[in-house]
């Protein structure tokens, strides 16, 4: 709300008006499939305002202080972390819109989240008895699509969260899931998960998503949903958590990050693109 902030907004607002753009996802897929066009400038013209300047060239890999946080604090085995990284990249891949999960730091974000009070389920009810009967298993297979849900779900991530009835905490579920995924990969393809072709990885991920894989203590879909939730969060949470590197997730969405005030802009008929600012900027 300070003058400084206002000035920045004015400087950085390019007055881009999102109205009037045309989008046809079907056409885009068709073009892609025929292989006539590949990304870059032409993709930009189709997607219009999605591609702001920063994505017309590769984001520079700047060695910043932030990168010093890219070390493991939860996944002790490098092999586990590699499987996790490969899985997140399939869920949120790099493409001509922008970076994928790995470039966004999602695997390190997940690693940090799992070594936190949330990863340990510290503020959850973890008293027994834990009922793992058919009733619960069946229940867990029901998707909970948040967009079909009740009040305030608009502000929840769009990932299903089945009813939690396992004695495992989130860190334990993730570790078990990652290792089970690698085991399935070894059984099916005699290779570790991260070395598979993308389509093979997708096939295994889908099997987990559909609850087809046996896991002790928890349904495989519960693990998958947790993995997906963490991947989306890692792409778009404030960079202070180790993901959303250089606010690249926010840039893709034209999301500005925390701002003091929109009172001067909120009635604007035009879509306003602002330069991204993080919580670090906001608090300093």
């Amino acid at each position, binding site marked *: 709300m300070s003058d400084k902030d206002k000035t920045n907004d004015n400087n950085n607002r390019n007055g881009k008006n999102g109205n009037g753009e045309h989008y046809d996802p079907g056409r885009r897929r068709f073009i892609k499939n025929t292989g006539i066009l590949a990304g870059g400038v032409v993709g930009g013209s189709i997607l219009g305002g999605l591609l702001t300047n920063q994505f017309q060239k590769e984001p520079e890999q700047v060695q910043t202080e932030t990168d010093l946080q890219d070390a493991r604090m939860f996944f002790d085995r490098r092999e586990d972390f590699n499987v996790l990284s490969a899985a997140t990249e399939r869920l949120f891949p790099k493409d001509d819109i922008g970076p994928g999960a790995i470039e966004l730091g999602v695997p390190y974000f997940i690693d940090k989240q799992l070594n936190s009070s949330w990863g340990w389920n510290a503020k959850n009810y973890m008293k027994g008895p834990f009922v793992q009967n058919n009733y619960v298993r069946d229940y867990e297979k029901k998707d909970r699509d948040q967009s079909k*849900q009740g009040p305030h779900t608009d502000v929840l991530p769009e990932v299903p969260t089945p*009813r939690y009835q396992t004695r495992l905490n989130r860190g334990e579920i993730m570790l078990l899931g990652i290792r089970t995924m690698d085991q399935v990969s070894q059984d099916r393809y005699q290779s570790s998960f991260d070395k598979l072709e993308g389509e093979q990885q997708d096939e295994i991920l889908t099997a987990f998503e559909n609850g087809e894989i046996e896991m002790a203590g928890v349904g495989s879909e519960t693990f998958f949903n947790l993995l997906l939730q963490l991947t989306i969060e890692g792409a778009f949470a404030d960079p202070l958590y180790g993901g959303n590197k250089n606010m690249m997730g926010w840039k893709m969405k034209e999301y500005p990050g925390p701002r003091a005030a929109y009172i001067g802009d909120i009635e604007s008929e035009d879509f306003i693109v602002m330069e991204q600012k993080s919580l670090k900027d906001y608090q300093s």
Partner: protein
Amino acid sequence: MVRKLDKVDVVVVGTGWAGGIISAELGKAGYKVVALERGEEKSTKDYIGVKDELRFTNRFEMMQDLSLETITSRNTLDETALPVRTKHELGVGNDLGGGSVHWAGATYRFLPYDFEIYSKTVERYGKKKIPDGMMLQDWGITYDELEPYYDRFEKTAGISGEQDPNPNAPKHSSDYPNPPTKETPNLKLFKEAARKLGYHPMQVPSGNVTQNYENPDGQTINQCVYCAFCTQYGCDFGAKSDPIVTVIPAARKTGNVEFRTQSYVRRVLHKNGKATGVMYVDMVTGQEYEQPADVVVLAAFTFTNNRLLMLSDIGKQYDPNTRTGVIGRNYNGQFNITFLGARGFFNDKKFNLYMGAGALGATFTDLTGDNFDHTDLDFLHGGGVELRQYGDGAIASNKVPKGTPRWGPEFKEKSIYYANRNLVVWYTPAVMPWWHNYTDLDPTYTDVFNDPLLRATFKYTDQDRNIAKFGIEKCREVVEEMGADIVDDDEIPEEFDHVYQGGHYAGGVIMGSDPSTSAVNNYLQMWDMDNLFVVGASAFPHFSNHHPTATVGALGYRAAEGIEKYLKNGGGSLAKSHEQKDKKII
């Protein structure tokens, strides 16, 4: 060893709107009050500069620590209830100010129809219109009787709004103290569409206050700047109407009220039909205390009000098999079958969805209550139709058209493309009470002190499914009129999913005029214990088709007046029961 403290006039459990209002009013009247809060001491300082979506929206920073206590939940009487274990599934406000700090701010009054719902339904449609097993009952108070308390609450909270242009809207004795929120392009679009369809749209009455405002207690609420970090956050600017900027400082100013935080109340103590005080645990030291008082007020969240009465063995527990007893009766609330509607995706329009405020929105009330004829409809009551602009976070804004995969390249492309190009219009239906929906104590699961958890039993009925279907159809018409390229209808869930995110849970300690079907009278005074008042949404016999806060606030003022009367009179019941009235007539 329980340590006994000095007696005070009034002890209040809970510091949200209900507890805050009662503490302030009794403090102003000169009574010594102790208000107990299980959570931590908080002030606006705690909410400055913490705009962190992951922490507040996704990790539910402001919600109750479930490792201490949760509820168990089941759909039907023959099931084993299971604990609701994670904050993703249960979000109940905690800390000073309670749920009233993280609320969105939508501040609707309930309708005249609500308070006399049984009589008015029978009068218009006959008794046969009420399905067997629907425990519809009048509230023991009329809209006109409650109106002055609504008015007081709106002035304390600085509610910002405009007169409802719907000719059937309830009458207000005065205008809202502040002008309505700003009309953004998406709200305009909604209103134009609604008008074309013959409705009467308006801005949602808002607790996000639209100008610097000094309330009648002399407390100042700042102007809302639409920063978007609102629902599920404390306000960065002291611009959301909440107890920590209004009634709590007003109470402190009197010098008569002490707010004691990290004080976990475990029992209401009573002897010979009178409450003598409460027993609580200091969560810092573990020391147990007895706080004696002349009047005990339970003003906690619905679940806690219910559970404390059950743990303290006060009032007769409701039994669904015999449909007798009152504590736990008419448990109700807005779950995942409410707030359904239609989402529009716009290929050629972008909206500044990252800007917003909790109660920034547009609505119309033409389809609320009994404002439309239900003769040929297969449900009772209605709902508001709303478009809100909360201010989307980047993690949350992943809305994609139906049929889009949940992950992978197509999901990424569409979720990013539509992040600022989708609007949802939803219906906010009322929820009726049923004989099989109730609360009691769980036979298996216990809290951190090994006391039984509250068990909630709740399932949907045809009423819920039919009203949801009606609402979705109406919302779709609006979204189509708004010109969306793709319109996706929400799907009606088969059954309640045991997810308690939204805070609209009510009943169990309901108000009325007959002690055999209600726990408290229209001053929120227990029929069975005249110095115990139980205040909050726990008193709602059914859930109206609007957000609950204004009614909780109004009942808070009503109860405060009752408690003052009670203390002045030196005791006694403040309302005649229905049975007694009948005798008089005879």
